[in-house]
């Protein structure tokens, strides 16, 4: 009789531990996964629609489920002035990032490719400014703007001018435009 609650508690704790490990770790050292521009470039093309989806990429969860990475992404988003064109997701000169429409794909690898390669009509390439890891962080943050990372991961807001609803209350937007990206749930 005593073992039942004990086992339940252990199970609950274990699952909480797994969830929190992934969310709370401060991944400040090298990313544990190999990065290469080649594998990335094949996940998308510059063509509208985002091209074919690749195999599920383990890096997606690695960045999107980690609060530190999303938070670093938020900071880089500010520092590298993504705000100037995309605002805080609402768009302006550039396309909005918190709606359901994704021209070049809404998955993290596709967003990374967009940041890395640049896109026609104004999106410059950040290849020489950001490391790949930083692009993944930004991509994870961008995904959080449309509610596509787990709710307990992203920050509610930045210490900045108010913009859009709190990310933590953001409902996941269904993704429009035929492409079905690899990384989303």
């Amino acid at each position: 009789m005593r073992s039942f609650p004990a086992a339940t508690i252990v199970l609950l704790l274990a699952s909480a531990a797994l969830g929190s490990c992934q969310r709370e770790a401060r991944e400040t050292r090298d990313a544990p996964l190999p990065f290469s521009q080649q594998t990335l470039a094949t996940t998308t093309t510059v063509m509208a629609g985002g091209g074919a989806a690749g195999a599920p990429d383990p890096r997606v969860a690695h960045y999107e489920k980690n609060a530190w990475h999303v938070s670093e992404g938020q900071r880089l988003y500010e520092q590298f002035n993504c705000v100037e064109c995309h605002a805080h997701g609402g768009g302006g000169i550039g396309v909005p990032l918190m709606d359901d429409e994704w021209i070049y794909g809404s998955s993290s690898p596709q967003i990374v490719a967009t940041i890395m390669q640049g896109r026609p009509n104004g999106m410059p390439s950040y290849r020489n400014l950001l490391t790949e890891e930083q692009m993944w962080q930004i991509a994870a943050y961008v995904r959080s703007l449309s509610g596509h990372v787990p709710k307990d991961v992203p920050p509610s807001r930045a210490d900045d001018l108010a913009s859009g609803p709190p990310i933590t209350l953001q409902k996941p937007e269904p993704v429009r435009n035929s492409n079905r990206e690899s990384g989303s749930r």
Partner: protein
Amino acid sequence: MSRVDGPDFTGDALHAALTETWSDAPGLWGWITTVDHKRVGRRYIATAFVFLALAGVLALIMRVQLARPESGLISADRYNQIFSMHGTTMMFLFAVPVMQAMAVYLIPLMMGTRQIAFPRLNAFSYWIYLFGGVFLWIAFVLNIGPEAGWFSYVPLAGPEYSPGKRTDVWAQMITFTEVAALAGAVELITTILKQRAAGMSLNRIPLFAWSILVTSFMVIFAMPAVMLASSFLIADRLVGTQFYNPAEGGDALLWQHLFWFFGHPEVYIIFIPAVGFVSQITETFSRREVFGYPVMVLSAVSIGLLAFGLWVHHMFATGLPRIGYSFFTAASMMIALPGGVQIFCWIATIWSGRPRWETPLLWVVSFIITFVMGGLTGVMVASVPLDLQLHDSYFVVAHFHYVLIGGAVFPLLGAVTYWFPKFTGRMMAEPLGKWNVLLSFIGFHLTFFPMHITGILGMPRRVYTYPAGMGWDTLNLVSTIGAFVFAASIVLFLFNVAISLRGGRAAGDNPWDAASLEWKTSSPPPPYNFDHIPVVESRTPLWDETRPVIPGLRTEVRELLVTTAIDAIPDVRDASPSPNGWPFIAAILLTIGFIGSIFTPWAVVWGALLMAPPLILWFWPHDPLEVKPEHSDE
């Protein structure tokens, strides 16, 4: 038939009847449902000491890391969590609760009543405290421990700079412990003001009760500040409010004002009960009433009031208007006056008494020396120009450990030694206790005295490592060695408690020949505390010639004597609630609601719905005896 205690109903028959009425159910069920302030108080104390030990281990880990420069034993991330946990646990899960815990056990006995006021709330408050503490520590083990310090300054603790749920865990733990502390404060105030023994007018209550009364009022006015601040923080982090966001009209200093409006009184909330311990111990072992009772009371009250005017002195370096500096300096220094007066009165009591050098009094001496040093460094940091150098350096670390360990933990250990026979019926081992005092005194000063110097030599607080060659290396090593000596003394104390629990000398009702009412009953006290409610005719009732009692409380239901607030004239017979499981259930459900509201604001709604049924059942009367006709003997 309803019987009341009195000349014709006393002795063993009365004992049997009252035991029947006031006992808990046997076994686990009784353990969960108990509302007996002594059982709840005991487990409250034990839990607080467990948290002391845990936070102490964290302190040792920090000291090992800091023993030498550029040490890489633990990472910055871990270290920051560890020092945040150390401060949080010590302040919220040890220092404040342990003082309330001692009061929960002792105050009803000292007041000569059978039960604390609102005993179910008291049980609930313990469970909430326990669950809050366990929640924090499980989170810590799962790497969700707080990392922004026990003070959680925004914006560092805000949504942008503290990713994940670590700070939410901290902020919600605040809610748990504050709910517990606030409930405790209300119970204790009511017990002290309304349930005193007949004749125990306000100018006759033991100084410890005065301390608890002042402390509880401070809790009531200080704790809402931190609850408000942490609720704002959680809202900022969860639903994107802008309280602390300077870009949208919020202000980082709003947090500091609210936090220190609580945080400064908090120090005195810890210290004033310790003052009460010291007064009780000094009185008993000097074999005379404490010198200057009215002055002592006035001092405690004025500390309580002044404490609310001082919060700004934690914020001298934030660039406040210069015009106010002298005012803040003067206000901060003024609190040294009542403190100094109390010190004088204790020494005067010893001086003019016939002291017996038992261990508790040795703790008091150890307290006086250490606390005075802490108080004097407090005068230094009260001065704005000096504080700008000393603030956030190791000097301040030394200062507040002198005040908190010297001023509160030493008296607490003395108090546990002093009341141990009452708690358990056994004495703590001697001469182990005396060696314990000496060892802790040496260990403490070896740890913390060097920190004054490291601070003046420029070492800031809260660093996980420091470079070599700054002149800090040796001092830090000494502190680390001292920390282990001090830890050994705490282990020795716990060891003494453990062996004395089993093999201690039997104590008897009043082993120290003390004067206050808790020593009137047996050790440990029966579930009903007193067979007849005492009548008090002086400040030291047990040193009086006669020990009158007032009869007339019913024995087959739980009944208390309620007296008037000032003069303690018998006024009403009040019913006291019976054991009940709903406080425990309510605490569990509230815990679920609190934890849920870290993740979703909707938890507030479903948490409240969850809580409603147990609360209704908790308050719903179901005592079948209550419908019997009353005063059947009339």
